């Protein structure tokens, strides 16, 4: 367990010396900031003309996850592929570290970094709250942030798993991006055209588990299980990929 923390901490620290991580952070905060201003402006305009709807924070959490679909592959792509390419994996795999600890540590490092980014976005609901009386629905916001924790954990685990398969970080990036794109947009598309099995496709879709439930304040067990399973799957794929690498 201590090994997981040691590895996680190095990866986390590493993001702060990586230009790419700053680009990712910027690419998340900039659209969210703009979106936030638009929401604030629009609701203030509505209020001027006698509208009564209060601004909500959930579009911001939704946008965070939406952006993570595109950007998190950049955070996970090099986690293991680069170690394989540079040969540093040889020293990790000959250290007394279990393969799972290595994968879990890499994942945790990325997870902590994304949670830090998510924590920064809390500033938007807090500002918003000043303009809303009596106050924002904080239960809704807590649910949405729990959603962020669950979804980003799952995305990053899948990304780490894929990074362990490839020795080329760009291969890892595009495969991860493709998978996320598929899980978010595509998998449930044919559901409405199918006579049967549509529920299965819907169940597999990332977006249905987020946009329509947890981001709207409903936490149900099915969603939590879905995210935790994806996380476990990602970590399992990563661990297996490392084991296969040894046996090759």
């Amino acid at each position, binding site marked *: 367990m*201590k*090994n997981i923390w*040691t*590895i996680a901490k*190095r990866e986390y620290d*590493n993001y702060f*010396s990586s230009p790419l991580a700053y680009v990712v952070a910027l690419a998340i905060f900039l659209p969210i900031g703009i979106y936030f201003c638009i929401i604030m402006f629009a609701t203030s305009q509505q209020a001027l003309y006698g509208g009564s709807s209060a601004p909500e924070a959930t579009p911001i959490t939704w946008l965070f996850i939406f952006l993570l679909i595109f950007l998190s592959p950049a955070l996970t792509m090099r986690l293991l592929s680069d170690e394989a390419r*540079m*040969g*540093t*994996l*040889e*020293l*990790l*795999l*000959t*250290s*007394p*570290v*279990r393969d799972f600890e290595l994968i879990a540590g890499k994942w945790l490092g990325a997870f902590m970094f994304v949670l830090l980014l998510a924590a920064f976005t809390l500033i938007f609901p807090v500002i918003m709250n000043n303009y809303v009386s009596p106050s924002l629905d904080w239960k809704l916001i807590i649910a949405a942030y729990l959603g962020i924790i669950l979804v980003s954990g799952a995305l990053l685990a899948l990304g780490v798993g894929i990074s362990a398969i490839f020795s080329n970080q760009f291969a890892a990036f595009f495969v991860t991006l493709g998978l996320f794109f598929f899980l978010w947009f595509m998998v449930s598309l044919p559901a409405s055209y199918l006579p049967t099995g549509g529920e299965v496709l819907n169940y597999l879709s990332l977006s249905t588990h987020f946009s329509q439930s947890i981001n709207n304040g409903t936490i149900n067990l099915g969603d939590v299980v879905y995210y935790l399973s994806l996380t476990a799957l990602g970590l399992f794929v990563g661990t297996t990929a490392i084991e296969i690498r*040894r*046996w*090759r």
Partner: protein
Amino acid sequence: MIKVSGLTKDYGARRAINNLNFDAHQGEIVGFLGPNGAGKTTTMRILTGYMPPTDGEAIVAGYNVVEESLEARKRVGYLPETVPLYTEMVVADYLKYMGDLRGVPNVEDRVDEVLGMVGLGDRANGYIGNLSKGMRQRVGLAQALLHKPEVLILDEPTIGLDPGQVVEVRELIREIGKERTVLLSTHLLNEAQNICDRVLIINKGKIVAEDTTENLQARLLGAERVIIRVRGEADEELAKAIKLIKGVRDVELKNDGAVEFEFASGKDLRPEVAKQIIKSGYDLLELRPLGMSLEEIFLELTSNEAKKK
């Protein structure tokens, strides 16, 4: 302690090492000598728990490298051939990281200590990416020493070092080898001769010879060859005079004015030869056993192996 029996590794259809058997004891430095592609790195990767063998067994520091891999890995220090390092990290941070992964107590003090051992104390706060190749080699060595491993496996430890550093690193390895088990690979025969107590010569995945450096020479020699120099140029006269001595054979007059001859080992004829030279009226300047260099032994062994096939 290292004990290897029947170790075999296939990469797909290619057999990289074939039924290796050897051991190395505590306090012993064993050299692993062989040409490119002989299987040195492959063997070392198995011993360090990087990958499992296709067949056979390896015990390192009392633990099976496959079944008790973690325990074995705790007790092994490894310097890989390519010395992979995180170039974007600071030297001391990198060593602390590796030390933490190996559960080194008081890791910061130990990092200072090890950096001192490899002579990099003044670069502790520099980036690894800014170090020269030789310095990186020594960071790799420092990393292998961090946890005071019982067994040290070094894949070509002096490659890329300048002559001064080579001497220092060899000295360090010799020092470490007094209490621990060291297995090092090299192409350099004089290196093996220089620091190893015992040499394993490996070619095409098989051990072709295993012995102490001295014995290996003697075994291959079977006879001792001696070179003689006299004041001025040696001539046919002298060669003839030496030929007269019983037991001397293969007398050869060299172009550079020296004479070489051989006698069966164990029957040292040097005193007789010296007397004969003086008696014949020459001034003897040099009389020196040639001894086969490890180079020659190596070529001989590996070409014998090739001939058998």
